[in-house]
């Protein structure tokens, strides 16, 4: 049971039957509440144990063969990160990232609310794989109690060989950025830090630190049980597996769904009940994502490869449907203002750049003025000039809006707007004064 052979299922028994089922991560029926330890083990079987060096290396290699990538938005190969942290000089630490500061996204909250033990399995497993003695799970406030409850249940059952600590995340957009998360855990300050040093070399208290999104860890927990070949039985050869998506906006049944990577974007909308109104645009990936024409994006596979055609990526799995009677420029201006306000406020080009860009977009959306050359210069000056990628993500989203809403820009220049309803499809949390 401690050795791993690609394609050979590790655990035989009742859980074996479950291995072929879909969805993999989400419950087959919603509404049952969080799965307790007993239900969890009945569905998935126990986590394979054994912490010797050979097992670690084999399992990291198996994750590499599975082709698992990070589900927090950046899509970095998980096995490479595991290997880098495992090779560190000091005893590493694992942080499970369930902060989900992306306002429109709910997939991590839903995963933690439904299957907390699957995430905890993954966190404990990752700790074992890199040689850490502690796994810290940082969960969004909305699911704090469920995660605390699940961790307590495991402690009572003396299930885990590593210490599991549960914390609540800072409810800020930038709070999920890996270095900001390390800073939050260490000092209670959700601000990104300068790089180098990279956190996999020197993160929490100077230790090599593995920060992984909670969905990634849930997939990891299943790869450890059923192997790479099982994992690759869904998805595309380049991007195997399933992924969680949050579908919001003008669809009949908005919510979180699990889809095979490569599912056409239009089918993803279909899984959410289909459009509830004629659609004007889609925002794919998240607030750092890409605006797209629904007719163009609909047939494209929801995968990094498939969305390359529109310069996009699945990001953190958001698909937002904007109805045709809401102005995309007004919606973009709202999101740009939100992202500018959510800057950690540390880097000049991010603070002033995103602020200037958001102001220019507000002027464009209200028809006050539009100076495209100046806006392009500001975007070029903000991009790539922060300690983290916050300005880059915001600029990417705005660039795609200017490309997709080109006709609307012309209309605005003539004093017209397609909006028949006020913008407000995408959630933009109001912040009290800090």
């Amino acid at each position, binding site marked *: 049971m401690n050795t791993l052979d690609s394609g050979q299922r590790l655990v035989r028994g009742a859980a074996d039957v479950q291995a072929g089922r879909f969805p993999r991560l989400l419950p087959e029926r919603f509404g049952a509440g969080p799965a307790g330890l007993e239900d969890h083990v009945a569905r998935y079987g126990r986590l394979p144990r054994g912490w010797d060096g050979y097992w670690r290396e084999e399992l990291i290699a198996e994750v590499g063969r599975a082709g698992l990538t990070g589900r927090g938005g950046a899509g970095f190969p998980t096995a490479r990160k595991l290997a880098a942290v495992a090779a560190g000089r000091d005893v590493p630490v694992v942080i499970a990232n369930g902060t989900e500061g992306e306002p429109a996204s709910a997939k991590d909250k839903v995963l933690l609310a439904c299957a907390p033990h699957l995430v905890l399995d993954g966190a404990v497993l990752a700790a074992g794989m890199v040689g850490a003695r502690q796994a810290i799970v940082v969960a969004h406030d909305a699911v704090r109690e469920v995660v605390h409850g699940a961790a307590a249940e495991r402690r009572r059952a003396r299930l885990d060989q590593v210490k599991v600590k549960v914390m609540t995340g800072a409810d800020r957009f930038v709070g999920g950025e890996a270095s900001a998360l390390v800073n939050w855990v260490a000092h209670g300050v959700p601000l*990104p*830090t*300068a790089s180098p040093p990279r956190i996999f070399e020197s993160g929490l208290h100077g230790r090599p630190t593995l920060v992984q999104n909670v969905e990634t860890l849930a997939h990891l927990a299943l790869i450890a049980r059923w192997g790479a070949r099982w994992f690759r039985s869904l998805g595309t050869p380049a991007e195997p597996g399933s992924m969680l998506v949050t579908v919001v906006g003008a669809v009949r049944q908005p919510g979180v769904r699990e889809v095979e990577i490569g599912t056409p974007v239009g089918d993803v909308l279909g899984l959410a009940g289909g459009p509830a109104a004629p659609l004007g645009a889609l925002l794919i990936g998240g607030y750092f994502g890409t605006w797209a024409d629904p007719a163009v994006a609909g047939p494209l596979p929801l995968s990094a490869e498939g969305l390359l055609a529109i310069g996009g990526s699945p990001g953190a799995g958001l698909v937002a449907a904007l109805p045709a009677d809401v102005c995309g420029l007004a919606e973009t201006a709202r999101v740009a203002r939100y992202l500018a306000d959510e800057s950690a406020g*540390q*880097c*000049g*080009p*991010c603070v*002033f*750049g995103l602020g*200037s860009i958001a102001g220019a977009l507000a002027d464009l959306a209200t028809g006050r003025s539009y100076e495209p050359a100046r806006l392009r*210069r*500001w975007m070029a*000056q903000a991009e790539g*000039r*922060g*300690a983290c990628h916050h300005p880059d993500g915001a600029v990417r989203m705005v660039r795609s809006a200017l490309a997709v809403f080109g006709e609307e820009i012309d209309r605005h220049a003539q004093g017209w707007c397609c909006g028949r309803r006020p913008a407000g499809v995408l959630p933009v949390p109001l912040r009290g004064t800090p």
Partner: protein
Amino acid sequence: MITGHRLRVDPIACDGRGLCAEVLPEMITLDDWGFPVLRDAEVPPGLLDEAAEAVRLCPRLALRLDHPPGTPGAPRRRTG
């Protein structure tokens, strides 16, 4: 010619005082908000002294000069 000496700005430490752009205008310009933009990270051999001076003058210690491995620190080291 590639010297391997590279300039970088720590964007968190940088406050946009702008001294670096005055000392090293060949390599550093300021953006619309007064923050330094490096034309190229690689420092050409003829500008190594100026680059070291810009690093030394930054009141926020935000400008760094990384030297290629195996070479001594700044070309003209100031001590004391």
